[in-house]
């Protein structure tokens, strides 16, 4: 049974070899071979996942003593299913999409190698295997993004991705070295066992080893999941083939969330790192969403949307909702993959007809023309604030009654409340014949989403972390001082309510002020539209390094 685990990455590897060997003989038909192997891999993963669900998982497979270990556990099975599923869809999509491109067979070889590497990465049971797979993902992605070897632009941005990934690789190597030094083994299972038994706290630069490792792992996750300051590669890699964009946004970019979950036993000893994850994730979510709104290029806008989603995923990890982050990355992977694969068709169709129905929703959302007759404001404000919180509380109470004991859950509830309130706040000005029907539909949709989210995340929690005590330890590690927590919640509530009041005030007095935007607003818009000048700063820094290197070479006479 354990051979099944090895077979999962072996199949795409074999496919890559066969595609390369038979490319000349089979021509374009060789892609069918690759698709067949991808589908078989998916079926195999489904078998393993079912075995895991029924408690008969295949355990682990070791290539040699203590190295080349592949494990089958709930996390690897779930992530494997996501990777194999998206890989199969991308394979099928590419058969026709890439048909006119040069290097057709090479593309499928690289796609198969990438699938195999990702599957090894999620199943790695020792640090060496994880490091190899983690590093190779960056290398393979570089060549996939630069599939068109004549496109200098594609390679330029592929290099950005590669370089950012290498920063994350360096952090992961240092984290691995620290773990090996502190616990004397490369095996992840043994390391996690020893961390729990470690009574003598070893330190590096004044940090306890788990905390130092946690910060390095966080940096690796930030680079891979496009967190703020390490995000610029993500929206600029659109010159690569669309199937690669889909694979990247749906699968590869999620690796940060996977890494945090894989090293959960380290993070339960590194509460401060989890707080750092929360802050970075929050900043990324906000900035990614703001940048998304200012883009006029569909694919770039999708890129920033992914950045925002990755920020939210990291934030979930930061509040201790590790399994929720996995659910989030799977859900995001599926819908973002679909969006990317459909983007070309949408752009093509929009050239003929924009396809937007000219109804009330269109005039409200696109032309920004709210109805003149609005519902009573106070009633709507009360509904806006009350409905989401009632739904959220009831849904979580139904799913897990101890939910309110956890700070992380409160934070997520808070975000859910804000989002729900924002939704109702935005729609109360819509023109409608039947306001009760509109409100009823909004509330119904919101209830379904919240109940679904709460129930599925709870199921994921039970599947990924069956031990209740460990789940509590994760939430406890993410928690912080109750007084500070309450102060922050009140502060953020005040800021958001003030924002709403500001919006209301500006809408009521909008006509008096006229339509001319303020200078501050325009400066902010300029800053956002130039993406905070980060790409310029990075470009300037790399040119400075290259110039310094040139001067050094001249000065030292090229020796």
């Amino acid at each position, binding site marked *: 049974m354990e051979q099944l685990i090895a077979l999962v990455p072996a199949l795409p590897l074999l496919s890559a070899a066969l595609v390369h060997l038979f490319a000349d003989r089979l021509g374009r038909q060789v892609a069918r071979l690759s698709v067949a192997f991808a589908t078989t891999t998916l079926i195999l993963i489904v078998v393993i996942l079912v075995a895991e669900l029924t408690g008969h998982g295949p355990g682990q497979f070791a290539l040699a003593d203590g190295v080349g270990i592949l494990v089958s556990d709930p996390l690897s099975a779930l992530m494997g299913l996501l990777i194999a599923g998206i890989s199969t869809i991308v394979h099928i999509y590419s058969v026709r999409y890439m048909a006119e491109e040069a290097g057709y067979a090479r593309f499928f070889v690289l796609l198969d190698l990438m699938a195999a590497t990702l599957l090894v990465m999620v199943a790695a049971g020792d640090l060496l295997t994880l490091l190899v797979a983690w590093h190779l993902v960056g290398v393979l992605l570089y060549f996939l993004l630069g599939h068109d070897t004549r496109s200098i632009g594609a390679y330029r941005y592929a290099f950005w991705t590669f370089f950012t990934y290498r920063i994350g690789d360096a952090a992961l190597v240092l984290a691995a070295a620290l773990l090996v030094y502190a616990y004397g083994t490369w095996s992840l299972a043994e390391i996690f066992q020893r961390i729990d038994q470690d009574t003598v706290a070893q330190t590096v630069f004044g940090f306890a080893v788990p905390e130092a490792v946690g910060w390095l792992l966080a940096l690796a996750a930030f680079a891979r999941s496009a967190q703020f300051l390490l995000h610029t590669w993500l929206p600029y890699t659109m010159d690569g083939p669309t199937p690669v964009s889909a694979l990247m946004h749906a699968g590869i970019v999620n690796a940060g969330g996977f890494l945090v979950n894989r090293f959960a036993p380290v993070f339960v000893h590194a509460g401060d790192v989890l707080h750092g994850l929360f802050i970075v994730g929050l900043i990324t979510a906000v900035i990614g969403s703001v940048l998304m709104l200012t883009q006029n290029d569909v694919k770039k806008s999708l890129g920033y949307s992914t950045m925002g989603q990755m920020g939210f995923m990291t934030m979930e990890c930061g509040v201790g909702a590790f399994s929720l982050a996995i659910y989030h990355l799977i859900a995001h992977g599926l819908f973002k993959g679909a969006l990317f694969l459909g983007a070309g068709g949408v752009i093509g169709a929009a050239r003929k007809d924009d396809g937007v129905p000219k109804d009330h929703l269109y005039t409200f959302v696109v032309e920004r023309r709210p109805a003149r007759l609005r519902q009573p404001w106070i009633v709507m404000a009360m509904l806006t604030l009350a409905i989401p919180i009632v739904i959220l509380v009831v849904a979580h109470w139904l799913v897990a009654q101890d939910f309110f004991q956890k700070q992380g859950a409160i934070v997520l509830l808070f975000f859910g409340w804000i989002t729900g309130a924002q939704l109702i706040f935005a729609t109360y000005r819509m023109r409608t014949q039947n306001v009760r029907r509109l409100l009823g539909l909004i509330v119904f949709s919101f209830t379904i989403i919240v109940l679904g989210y709460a129930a599925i995340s709870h199921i994921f929690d039970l599947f990924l972390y069956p031990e209740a005590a460990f789940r509590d330890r994760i939430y406890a590690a993410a928690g912080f001082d109750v007084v500070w927590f309450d102060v922050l919640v009140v502060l953020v509530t005040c800021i958001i309510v003030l924002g709403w009041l500001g919006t209301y005030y500006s809408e009521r007095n909008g006509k008096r002020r006229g339509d001319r935007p303020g200078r501050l607003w325009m400066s902010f818009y300029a800053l956002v539209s130039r993406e905070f000048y980060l790409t310029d700063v990075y470009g300037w820094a790399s040119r400075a390094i290259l*110039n310094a*290197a040139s001067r050094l070479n001249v000065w030292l006479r090229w*020796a």
Partner: protein
Amino acid sequence: MASYGYIIAALFLPVFPLSMAFNMLYARTRSVALRVLLLLAWPQAGVAVLSVSSGDIPVWVILFAIWTALLYGVRALALREVSIWTGFLATSAWAVLWIPAYGGAESVQLQLYALGFSAPLVLLALLVTELERRFGAAYTGLYGGLAHALPRLSGVLVFVVLAITATPLFPGFATMLDVIVTALPAMPVVAAVLAGTWLLWSWAGVRLLHGLIIGPAGEAAPQDLSPSATWAYVAALGALFAAGIYAMGGLA
């Protein structure tokens, strides 16, 4: 007496400014056989001198060595002449070997590490002659588009550069991992600088590839690498690959 030994070793496991001697010599050597000999024998001589030197390696030598690795990593970024690039990457990689030597690694292990760094550089030195034969110079940004014009040569070049920049599963990867694990307990900053140097190698490697294989192909269409030569390179790379996997098994 021990200091003299280390100074001589610093010439062969190049430490700046003594490293300039190797790079001058390598740049002036026109014969490919001599270049291959230099790349293989130079660091082995350093390891041999180190093994007969008595006493502990002074910390300042280690600091100079790590500075050398970083310096040549940075300088390689701005290079366009592939032969000089080869010399700089060799210098940067061999300087790293001072760390396991400081950590008490045995001579045999150091020799294997040096060989693991040198072997892909030898392959690049051979590819340089192939480029010079076809274009008159091995120079990035001069012709470009080789992926389209010379797919076999480009494919081999890509794998050779990946091997030089210590990509998994080539031997350099295992060496760098071992060196970082060795350095970390006693010298965490040195370990971080090593990780940074590794990053610079990747950057330099990508710039080299960009300048040679990317872009539209030129009008002149020289002959690609012959199938037999390609197979020879593939066999060499396969051997390196196998050695890398073996070396990783040794780490565990």
